[in-house]
């Protein structure tokens, strides 16, 4: 039995003896991916706690547990953590790191030490982001926090005037942006340079296509928000004037620059998630994926068109009608490649031998929730409807159906799919499936009422509401309780899987891509024993069985 990457590693510098330091200094892409996952999900639960606090407060009209100012800070905290700390690094940082090099037959990413540096840059960003949480004092027996209260969007001019700690949040977002850029850069070079011989772009697994498209967004969109945050800081402390109306500056320009990044950022989140879907659907339908080329190219075109649609966030901000029309028109285009993907997935399942394992359940559940999230997005891309629905719970419901019901659900799907690869063990499938059903029900109960409340005019980010909205908030509350219980149960099941799971062999799902052809499970330090020559498509099944087989030296034997 060869050693796995849990036993040995390469370090960025030095030869530390202690296991702890070996993890801290590791340049191994798999270990770095695991560390990202641990940190990210820790913060994920902090943000869930902030959200749950808001749900408690909103159970009835009026003030119950927290005051209005704290409520503002709670939704800012929720947004900043969920967006900048969790979902933007998200799937690329975890599975892009762990799985992508394995899928293309590489020994590591192109710049392993840069990868290590990037991880620590991310940690520094997290520390800066949350540092102001500890800047609180106690007045009249109550905690008074000093966290930013601007929302995660930091809109000027409010963010430039508020006395709360916006500066740490801005600096943190900049640092996290740099980490994101470097991750993207590393992956782009890796995918261009380190593919196994014979593997051209159209023999890559579709998850790699998702990561590739994402990396371009990370690389080219993030600098725009980086410079915007710097300009906002310069504005706040040096008064350069460009976002300050009293000097002729235009705050709407801040929104332009902010969304030039932050809208492509949602495609940055969803594209690797779609990649996971494209891995899971053929593996559990035991059928070659339908329309490989269209899925691959739709990833690229979503990324491309995604750059050009940021203005639909500004329909009510004071843009010219001409620009509104252009943006509305361009936004509809994004739905086309997304629709193509959906039909391809459904067509893949047609006449397949569908295995309803946990990852497949998550993927199928996401098809429902993301379809709702995506199509409701098309409704608010229409200018007229958006004037009514902008900044209401309708938009919030749309966003969470797309991000939580799309990205995070597929993230969970990926966790269940690659869990045996990473740990060499299997979790309890019965419990994991139960967790899925709890989460799925809780999720819909939590978010669907918001569509209705928003349609009737419940505005977002409000601490209080009219009594007629109470019923929706209360349904949402019970949904939230179910959802959080499901989350805890799911993570309990997974942790039990790590501790006590049964060894499962290298390829428990009968999947075809290269990461399932490793010599041992968990994988050894430098991945495949030998780099294979790739002269096959990624998802070849014949009568429900994988076609391509390798011997121990990665030579094809089928």
């Amino acid at each position, binding site marked *: 039995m060869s050693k796995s990457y849990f036993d040995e590693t390469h370090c960025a510098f030095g030869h530390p003896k202690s296991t702890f330091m070996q993890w801290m200094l590791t340049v191994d892409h798999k270990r770095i991916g695991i560390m990202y996952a641990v940190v990210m999900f820790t913060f994920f639960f902090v943000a869930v706690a902030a959200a749950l606090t808001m749900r408690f407060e909103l159970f009835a009209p009026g003030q119950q547990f927290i005051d209005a100012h704290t409520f503002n800070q709670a939704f800012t905290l929720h947004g900043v953590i969920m967006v900048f700390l969790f979902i933007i690094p998200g799937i690329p940082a975890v599975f892009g790191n762990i799985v992508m090099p394995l899928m293309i037959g590489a020994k590591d990413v*192109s710049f392993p030490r840069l990868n290590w540096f990037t991880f620590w840059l991310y940690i520094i960003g997290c520390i800066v982001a949350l540092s102001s949480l500890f800047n609180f004092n106690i007045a009249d027996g109550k905690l008074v926090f000093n966290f930013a209260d601007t929302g995660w969007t930091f809109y000027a001019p409010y963010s430039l005037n508020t006395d709360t700690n916006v500066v740490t949040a801005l600096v943190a977002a900049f640092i996290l942006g740099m980490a994101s850029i470097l991750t993207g*850069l*590393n992956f782009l070079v890796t995918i261009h*340079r380190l593919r196994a011989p*014979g593997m051209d772009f159209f023999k890559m697994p579709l998850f790699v296509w998702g990561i590739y498209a994402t990396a371009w967004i990370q690389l*080219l969109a*993030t600098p725009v928000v980086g410079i915007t945050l710097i300009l906002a800081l310069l504005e706040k402390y040096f008064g350069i004037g*460009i976002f300050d109306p009293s000097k002729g500056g235009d705050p709407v*320009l801040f929104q332009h620059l902010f969304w030039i990044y932050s809208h492509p950022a949602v495609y940055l989140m969803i594209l690797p998630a779609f990649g996971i879907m494209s891995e899971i659907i053929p593996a559990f339908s035991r059928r070659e994926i339908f329309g490989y080329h269209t899925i691959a190219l739709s990833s690229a075109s979503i990324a491309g068109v995604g750059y050009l649609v940021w203005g639909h966030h500004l329909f009510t901000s004071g843009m010219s009608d001409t620009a509104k029309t252009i943006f509305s028109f361009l936004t509809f285009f994004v739905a086309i490649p997304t629709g193509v993907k959906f039909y391809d997935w459904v067509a893949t399942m047609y006449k397949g031998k569908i295995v309803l394992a946990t990852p497949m359940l998550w993927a199928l559940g996401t098809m429902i929730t993301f379809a709702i999230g995506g199509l409701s997005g098309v409704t608010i891309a229409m200018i007229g409807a958006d004037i009514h629905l902008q900044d209401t719970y309708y938009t919030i419901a749309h966003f969470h159906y797309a991000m939580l019901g799309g990205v995070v659900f597929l993230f969970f799907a990926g966790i269940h799919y690659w869990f045996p690869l990473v740990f060499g063990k299997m979790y309890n499938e019965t419990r994991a499936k139960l967790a899925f059903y709890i989460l799925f029900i809780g999720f819909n109960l939590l978010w669907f009422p918001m569509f209705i409340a928003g349609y009737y005019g419940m505005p977002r980010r409000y601490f209080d509401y009219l009594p007629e909205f109470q019923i929706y908030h209360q349904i949402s509350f019970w949904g939230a309780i179910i959802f959080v219980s499901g989350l805890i149960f799911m993570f309990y099941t997974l942790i039990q899987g790590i501790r006590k799971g049964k060894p499962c062999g290298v390829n428990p799902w009968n999947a075809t891509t290269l990461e399932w052809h490793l010599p041992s499970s968990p994988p050894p330090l430098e991945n495949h024993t030998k780099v294979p020559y790739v002269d096959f498509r990624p998802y070849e099944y014949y009568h429900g069985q994988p076609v391509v087989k390798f011997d121990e030296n990665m030579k094809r034997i089928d």
Partner: protein
Amino acid sequence: MAHDSHEYIPEIAVDRNGNEHVVQGWQGDNYGGKLGFWLFMLTEVMMFGAMFMVLTYYFTLHHADFIKASSELDRTLGGINTVVLLISALTMGLGLLKMRSGDVKGAKLMIWATMLLAVIFLGVKALEWTNDYKEGIFLGLQGLQSGNEFSKPFGEILFFGMYFTMTGLHGFHIIIGIGLMLWLLKRINSGKVTPEHNILHFNIALYWDLVHLIWVFVFPYFYMTGAGAIHG
């Protein structure tokens, strides 16, 4: 890896017909290093591109004010800096050429020359900013604040705000460049950068060209816009 001092030997993959294919490893990937650095430079392009967009936005809104403000800048000092930077790009390029042709000593000399020119650039810049300050044009001074008797019109406030931001950030890149060149000299002295392994030198030369490239647009946009026949 730092401790893998022995020469990296690429792996060979064999296809079904027995043909051998060299596997590209992350070690010794010269082209990968170059590609990575180019991608990094694209992020700089997007950053400065966004700032130019802000600038153009306000130029469109306040055309006359911008032209008037631009004519107040010191074109001589700006011009000197343009030429200084232009020559420094040459010395940097020649340094890389010398390195690649095996003349390590000459390469180091050229890097020192580039650094000297960079320092001159910063000196001229400092002189220029000092002059601006004396004329009452600086961030935080009354002229660039709103609502007092010295307040300049909106367009001029925004012009100078962007002027200090963009030349400041450009100057910051020059400082970073000097730091990179010092690091490069250290690597050359310790034998890590040699005529055969020159990717670091190559990339830092690219970086310096990018800094020059940004100035190629910053200079005419700020200094020359107000030099034409149309005046405020």
